[in-house]
C-alpha cells in the first residue's frame, strides 16, 4: 500500500489527476457477478468492494452494464484510474453473425490489396480458411441455398445469433425443413413469427474423436488493446467432451447431447459426471496427440490454433472501439477435425466463471489472477494511461499471442540498424505492413 500511496501522490505532483477525483489510498472494485473466484482475487490484493454508483477503480461488469456506461446517454466519463472488463462494442467479435461478417470482410480486403494472406485456391482462402462455411439467415438465404446444392448430403447447424450456452440450436439435413422456417420468418405482417437472426454453418461432420467421443476446445484469450493489438493466450485451456458416443446416423441427429459440447448442455445429460465435468486439460490432449499422432502434426495444429485466434482478432481490430480503459477476456470455442485442422466456432465475451468441479475452480481462479497481473500496472493501481506492457514475470499463466507494438518497435530498431530490408515473401511481415 505504501507504494500505492507514493504513486498517487506522484501523479498529483505532476497534475495528472483531475481535481474532481478524490484522493484515494485504496483500490476499489465493483462487480456485477458475485463469484468467489472474482472477489477472492480482488480481496487478496487488498482491494475493497464498492457499489456501481460509488467511485470504483476496477469494474468486473456484465456486458449490458458496460454498454450502458459507454452509451452517450449515461454521460459517465471514466478517469485514468478506472478499468473495465469489456470493450463497448465487443459484439463485433462475439456475436455469431458479426464475427462471420467481419472475417469475410477482412479476407476480402486482404485479397483486394493483393496481400499474400488473401490468396485463394479452388475458391477457398489458403491461409484464412478457419471458420466453417456460414451464412446469416434470413438475409443470406439465397446464397445459402446455392451452397447447399453443391453438397446436398451435408448437415448444417442453425444457431440463433444472440443466444449462448447452446440455446436454440438445431441441426438440419433437409432443405425442406429450412424452407418452412424461412417462409415463416419472412412473413412481414405477423411480427410474432419474425424470428431473430440465425447463422447457419456447415456442420463439422468429421470431428476428432477421443475414446469415441466428440469434444471442443475452450481457450481463454485476453486482449488489452486492439490498436496496436495486444493479446495473450491462457495456457490452461481445456477440452469439453460429450457424454454420449459420437454417431451421425439419422436417429441421433436430434440427440443434442451427441453434438453439443457446452457444459451447460451436457450437464442436463444423464451421464454428466460432477467430478471431472467432462473436461480434459489441453496439456493432456497434447500428450495424447503427440503420443498417438506424432509431434509434427500436433505442433502444426497448435500453431494453426494461434494463427486462427490472431487473425480473428485482426479482423475486428479496426472497428473495435479501442478505449484505453478496457480489456476483455474472450472464451474461444474451437473444434478440431480428424485431419487435425482447427475450426473457430464462436467467441464468448463473458466466459462462464461458474465452477463445476474443484479443478475448474482452481483453473478459473488462476485465470482471474493472471488477468489481473497483466492488466494492472506494476504500481498495483489501475491506470488507463499505462503503456500496457506487462513485465515478462507478470504474465503468469498467459503467453503473449501478439504484441504489435513490440513488433513495430523491433522492426524499427532493425530498420535503423541495416536500413534496408525487404522481405515480401514473409507472410507475417505482410500482415504487419497492412496498416
Amino acid at each position: 500500500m505504501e507504494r500505492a500511496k507514493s504513486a498517487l501522490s506522484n501523479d498529483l505532483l505532476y497534475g495528472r489527476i483531475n481535481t474532481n477525483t478524490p484522493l484515494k489510498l485504496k483500490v476499489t472494485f465493483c462487480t456485477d457477478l458475485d463469484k468467489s473466484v472474482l472477489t477472492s482475487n480482488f480481496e487478496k490484493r487488498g482491494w475493497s468492494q464498492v457499489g456501481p454508483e460509488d467511485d470504483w477503480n476496477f469494474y468486473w461488469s456484465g456486458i449490458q452494464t458496460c454498454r450502458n456506461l459507454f452509451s452517450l446517454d449515461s454521460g459517465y466519463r471514466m478517469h485514468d484510474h478506472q478499468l473495465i472488463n469489456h470493450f463497448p462494442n465487443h459484439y463485433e467479435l462475439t456475436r455469431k453473425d458479426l464475427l462471420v461478417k467481419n472475417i469475410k470482410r477482412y479476407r476480402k480486403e486482404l485479397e483486394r490489396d493483393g496481400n499474400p494472406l488473401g490468396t485463394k485456391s479452388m475458391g477457398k482462402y489458403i491461409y484464412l480458411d478457419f471458420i466453417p462455411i456460414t451464412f446469416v439467415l434470413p438475409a443470406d438465404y439465397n446464397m445459402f441455398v446455392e451452397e447447399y446444392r453443391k453438397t446436398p448430403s451435408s448437415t448444417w447447424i442453425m444457431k440463433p445469433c444472440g443466444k449462448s450456452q447452446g440455446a436454440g440450436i438445431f441441426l438440419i439435413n433437409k432443405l425442406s425443413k429450412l424452407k418452412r422456417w424461412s417462409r415463416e420468418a419472412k412473413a412481414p405482417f405477423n411480427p410474432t413469427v419474425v424470428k431473430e437472426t440465425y447463422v447457419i454453418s456447415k456442420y463439422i461432420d468429421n470431428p476428432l474423436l477421443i475414446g469415441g467421443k466428440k469434444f471442443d476446445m475452450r481457450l481463454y484469450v485476453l486482449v488489452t488493446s486492439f490498436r496496436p493489438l495486444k493479446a495473450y493466450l491462457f495456457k490452461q485451456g481445456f477440452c469439453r467432451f460429450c457424454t454420449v458416443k459420437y454417431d451421425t446416423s439419422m436417429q441421433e441427429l436430434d440427440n443434442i447431447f451427441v453434438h453439443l459440447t457446452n457444459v451447460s448442455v451436457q450437464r442436463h445429460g444423464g451421464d454428466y459426471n460432477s467430478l471431472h465435468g467432462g473436461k480434459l486439460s489441453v496439456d493432456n490432449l497434447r500428450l495424447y496427440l503427440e503420443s498417438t499422432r506424432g509431434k509434427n502434426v500436433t505442433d502444426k495444429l497448435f500453431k494453426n490454433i494461434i494463427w486462427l485466434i490472431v487473425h480473428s482478432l485482426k479482423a475486428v481490430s479496426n472497428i473495435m472501439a479501442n478505449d484505453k480503459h478496457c480489456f476483455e477476456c474472450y472464451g474461444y470455442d474451437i473444434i478440431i477435425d480428424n485431419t487435425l485442422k482447427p475450426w473457430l466456432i464462436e467467441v464468448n465475451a463473458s466466459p462462464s466463471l461458474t465452477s463445476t468441479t474443484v479443478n475448474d475452480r482452481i483453473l478459473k481462479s488462476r485465470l482471474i489472477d493472471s488477468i489481473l497481473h497483466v492488466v494492472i500496472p506494476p504500481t498495483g493501481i489501475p491506470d488507463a494511461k499505462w503503456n500496457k506492457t506487462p513485465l515478462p514475470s507478470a504474465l503468469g499463466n498467459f503467453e503473449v499471442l501478439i504484441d504489435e507494438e513490440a513488433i513495430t518497435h523491433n522492426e524499427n530498431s532493425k530498420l535503423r540498424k541495416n536500413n534496408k530490408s525487404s522481405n515480401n515473401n514473409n507472410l507475417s511481415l505482410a500482415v504487419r505492413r497492412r496498416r
Partner: protein
Amino acid sequence: MADLKDSIHATTEKLTSDLKKMTMYKTFYEDLQKLVSKSAVKNTNFKNTLLEAMKMNGMENELRNTIFQWVRSHKNPAATREPLIYLRKSQATWQKRIHKSLNSMASEIKIHLAQSRVLSDKEEMNDKWNELSIYDVDLSQYRPVYAPKDFLEVLLAIRSPNYKCPNVMKLQWDFIQLPLMVKTFKELRNFYSEISRGDLLLGNNPNMKSENPNYPTLLAERTALGEKVLETNHAPVTQEYLKKGCPRSLRATMWVQVLGVEVKENEKLYFQYLKNVVLQHDLMVDKLIIKDVQLTASNDHQYFVFEDVLYQVMLCFSRDAEVLCIFSHSSAQPVHGVLRGKPPTIENTVIYPPNGIIPFHGFTMYATPFCYLYDDPVQLYYVFRAFYTRYWFRLHEVSSHPQGILSLCILFERLLHRLDNELWCHIKTSGVQPIRLTFKWIMRAFSGHLSPEQVLYLWDLILAYDSLEILPIMAVTIVGLRKVSLIRVKDLAGFEAVLADLSSITVMPLLQMVLVSKHLDSLIRLPKDTTKTGSLIEPKTKKDGKK
C-alpha cells in the same frame, strides 16, 4: 569349461524347442521357406546368402528379438516358487480371505460366480461393445473385494519366525521383522548409473539445450536418435535408449519393441476370441471390473475419456488364460472351482476367473496410462498384458522376490531412514509407519497419482532398467520434497493432506536430484528461482508451507 559348454548346449536345446511352440514360429517358418525360394539365396553358397537375406528383410532381427524376450522371461531362477514358508503361508491365508469375501458377496447378492450369459444380455453387450459405459447393470450392491489399505495390513502383520521382538524397543522398525535383502542406496546409484552420474535426461526442462551443437534442443537430439533406434528394431537397444527418457511421439512404438508385443493377425484374432468368451459367460468378476472402472477411471479428470476402451481391455483380460503363466513364478495360486452340478473331478475343475486374478480397488489403474499411447484397444491390450505379466502381478502378492511389493516396501523404509533420518523419526514418533503414506502409490505404480505424462516417464524407467525399484525411490523423493510441510504436522491425516496432490511433481528432475546428490535435503534446498521456472521443482512446497 565342459560344464559351461553343457549349459549352453542345454539352454540352446530348451530355446529351440520353446521356439517351435511359439505362435510366431509357424509364420516365421513359412516366411523363411518363401525367402529360400527367392533369387537372393544362392544354391552354391546357401548358408551365407540365406543369412544375408534374413538380415536384409528383418527376419534376423525378429529372431533376435524373440530370443531376447525369451531370455528376459527366463531370468527368474529355476526354483521360482516362494522359498520362505512363512510368506507362502501368509499369501495362502490372504488368498483364502479374498475368496471368502468373494463368495460371501455372491451369496449376499444371490448371484452365481459364473453362468452362461442369457441371449438378451449377450446381444446387448455385443451391441454396446464399443460404448460399454451405457451398458446398464445395477452395481449398487457390488463393492471392491479389497483395497490397497487392506493389503498393507496383511503385510504389516507378517513376522519372520526367526525374529524375536525385544519388548524394550519402543521405536520399532516395522519391517525389521522381515529380513529380506534389498539394495543399498549405493547399489541403487550404481544400478541407475545413467541417472546418478548426471547425464542429461529428457523430462526435465522441455527446452533444455543439447550438448551436441547439431541439435537445437535435447528433445530434438533424443528424437533423432530415437528414430534411428526404432529403425533397427532391436529390443535390447530400444530398452537401453529408454534410460534417458523418451520423447512423447516415439514412446508408443518403443514400448511395443521392448516388450515384443507387435499386433499382427494372430493377436487380433485372439483378442476377438477373448471378446467372444466375455459374451459367452456372465461372471461375477465382470461386475467387479465394471465397478472398478467406474470408481477409478470414469471419475478421473485425466482418464474419463477412455472409459469405454478400458471396459473392453479389462473384461478381455479377465478371460485371458495366457496370463496364467505368471503363476509358474508367483507365490500366488489361482482359485479353482468345480463346475456346478458336476462331480469334483479334474476335468470339471476350472480356474476362476479364467486369468486367475481377482481385481481389487484400483486394479484398472494398471492399464489407464496406456490409453494415452494407443488408440487401438488391441495394441493397448497387449502392452498392458505384457506389463502386468512382467511387473504388476508382483505388486499385489506376498513374496520374497526382490521385485515383490514386500521388498519394495522395505526398500522405501530403509531409503527414508538412510536419506532423511530426521523426517523418518518425525513420522515414526507421530505414531505413523512411513510406508502407510506411500503404499498406495507403490502398489499402483503411481498411476492415478502422478499426472499421466509423469507416470509414463516413470514407467519408461521401469522398462529401461527392467525393475520396479524406481517406485520406492520415487516415493521417498516425494516425501523428502514435502519435508518442510510434513514436519509441521503430527498425525496421519495431516501427512496425507500434505501428500494428497501430486499433480505438480515432475519425475525425472527429482529422481536425478536425489540420485546425484545422495541427499533428500538437497530437494528443499533448491534455489528459490527454480520454482519460478517451473522446470525443476513444483511450487507446491511453498503452498504447503502455509497450511
